[in-house]
């Protein structure tokens, strides 16, 4: 995918650019707000990464301006401000996700990919989600694998639903905390790992092909192979 990086800190910009290249993406860089807005408006990108504090024009104004002119390019806001109020302000301006500096690169890529995917939903109002022989029914809240009904708790269902909606993508622990439990906080223990391993024991145990994979140093991925 093609990503626009609007970031005035040269170090951070080249760090992001290098990482995106290594992950197989291309990127353009704008070092100030005005250039960034111009590039975002004139060219077509799959996603953009916007620093909140920029010389000239700040990140939130860029996004607000783009949204006003009906530009829907998914935008991920980078910021050193991590308070909930700041996050809310960022999302209200039209940002699609918010990441606090410094961040692990795997977190950035996972979120970016999720954004791009969300921008192109395959089916808008499906009531069932399927991967390989695993199927979940969103209305009946039922999970079947290979036709067999699995007994699953409400929390595990929500977790599985999130993973299903992001199937094939790496999902980080923070994304799960925010997406499944809707709280922004630091878990003290590996509480997510515990939930994942319980879910795994239900959907993968006794089946030949594992579907729920651990991606070292990054998070998890629900995928077929």
């Amino acid at each position, binding site marked *: 995918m093609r990503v626009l990086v609007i970031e005035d800190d040269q170090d951070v910009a080249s*760090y992001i650019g290098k*990482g995106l290249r*290594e992950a197989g993406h291309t990127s353009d860089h704008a070092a100030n707000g005005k250039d960034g807005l111009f590039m975002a408006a004139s060219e077509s990108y799959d996603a953009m990464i916007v620093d909140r504090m920029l010389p000239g024009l700040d990140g939130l104004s860029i996004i607000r301006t783009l949204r006003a002119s009906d530009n829907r390019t998914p935008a991920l806001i980078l910021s050193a401000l*991590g*308070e*909930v*109020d700041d996050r809310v302000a960022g999302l209200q301006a039209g940002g699609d996700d918010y990441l606090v*500096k*410094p*961040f*692990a*690169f*795997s977190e950035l890529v996972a979120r970016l990919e999720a954004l791009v995917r969300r921008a192109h939903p395959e089916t808008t109002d499906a009531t069932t989600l399927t991967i390989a022989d695993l199927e979940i029914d969103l209305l009946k809240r039922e999970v079947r694998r290979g036709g067999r009904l699995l007994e699953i708790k409400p*929390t595990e269902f929500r977790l599985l639903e999130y993973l299903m909606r992001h199937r094939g993508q790496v999902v980080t622990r923070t994304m799960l905390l925010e997406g499944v*439990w809707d*709280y*922004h*906080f*630091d*878990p*003290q*223990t590996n*509480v997510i790992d*515990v*939930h994942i391993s*319980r879910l795994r024991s239900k959907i993968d145990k006794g089946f030949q092909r594992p579907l729920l994979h651990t991606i*070292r*140093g*990054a998070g998890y991925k629900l995928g077929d192979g």
Partner: protein
Amino acid sequence: MRPRGGGKPMPARIWRTSTFRFAALYMVLFAISVVLLLGLVYWMTAGFMARQTDETIETEIMGLAEQYRRRGLNGLGQVIGERMRADPDGSAIYLFATPDYKPLAGNLDQWPPLVADADGWLNFPRQDTEAGEVPARARLFVLRDGLHLLVGRDIRDLVRTEAMIRRGLIWGLGLSVALGLLGGLLMSRRINRRIEAINETSREIMNGDLSRRIPDRGSGDEFDKLSEQLNAMLDRIEELMEGVRHVTDNIAHDLRTPLTRLRTRLEMLQSAAGEDLDGAGVAECIAESDQLLQTFNALLRIARIESHGPTKSASVALDQIAGDVVDMYQAVAEEKNVALEADVVPVTVAGDRDLLFQALVNLVDNGIKYTPPGGSVTLAVAVDGDDCCVEVRDTGPGIADAHKEKVTRRFYRIDGARGEKGNGLGLSLVAAVAQRHDALLEFADANPGLVVRLCLPCAVQTAPTNRAH
């Protein structure tokens, strides 16, 4: 944390204060000087009068004795008669008697029934025709042939003066003691109020509000000077503490970025080298750097929470948050064979949803961590008066009293036995959240185990949807 129930001591009993003791000492000295002064007045007035009376009597006796020696008994009688006539109001007393005290001449009917002292002086009441019994003082003189001569004076004026001065002495003493006592009380009350203001401020500062300062009256007296000095000292302390915290936060902040990059390099190395090539070693390095990052993040988070004032807060259903915490940690508890239970009633508080969730997560996480398998952790939400309280009770080893005050300090770990992993910041974060919500955080014994209470003022009582488990 609210400085509630912070053990505000009763004002010290006033007589135990040093100001009162000084006042009392001053009062005693004052009373002594009053006694001395009035004693001097007494000696100079009543004493003078008494001496004068005695001198007059003695002079008269000498005169009469001389008359007797020269002119014999008859001459003496004559002189006494003359003198009695010259003293019409009868203040002078004369009595001439035989050796066996039979009166021969004079203005006393009989010899007073009293024995004279060694010098021949005696005081006795004398019958007066008008005033009844009046005090008199006289001296006895024994003439040749054993005849007795008694010469005296009516001393009612003297006695009256003496009584008056004695009354003055008693009243003066009483009044000076009473006034001294009253003055001492007022003075020590006044001084104690000033000192209490200083104490009150120090208590609040010790309770964590370092921005408090001792009020200044603006009168420029020595208490104001003391307050100024203490306030200047507090400014300096606050500045230094701010500096230390600033340095810590800066270190955490500045190290976070390179550490994140290090982590990313490791990640890239891992994906480049493939899973087989020393994958485990790199993964451990990544885990280690994640741990460090988490510590830095926690430090910065605490700093941010502490430095912000009370945030514009929304209505938060505390019971719902508690339910979500239990929902999230149920799996962790089951893994460890610890029963995690919720016991909640619907309550609403004003606060920050994420921070309160974080605080409860830290408490429940600690509870599960320190409770041995087979034990239980209970998360209760209840109303206690005007407060909404969350209570996390576990059946672990609890916290010794000596540690209870200190567990909320950054990096404070109760040594040895526990050996659990963690960064020593969990309860500091809870304390910071409590402080920001004007909440009271308490650690108590659950016998066995620990009970942590977090009480914050309830919002207006509305009943939100109850998601109790």
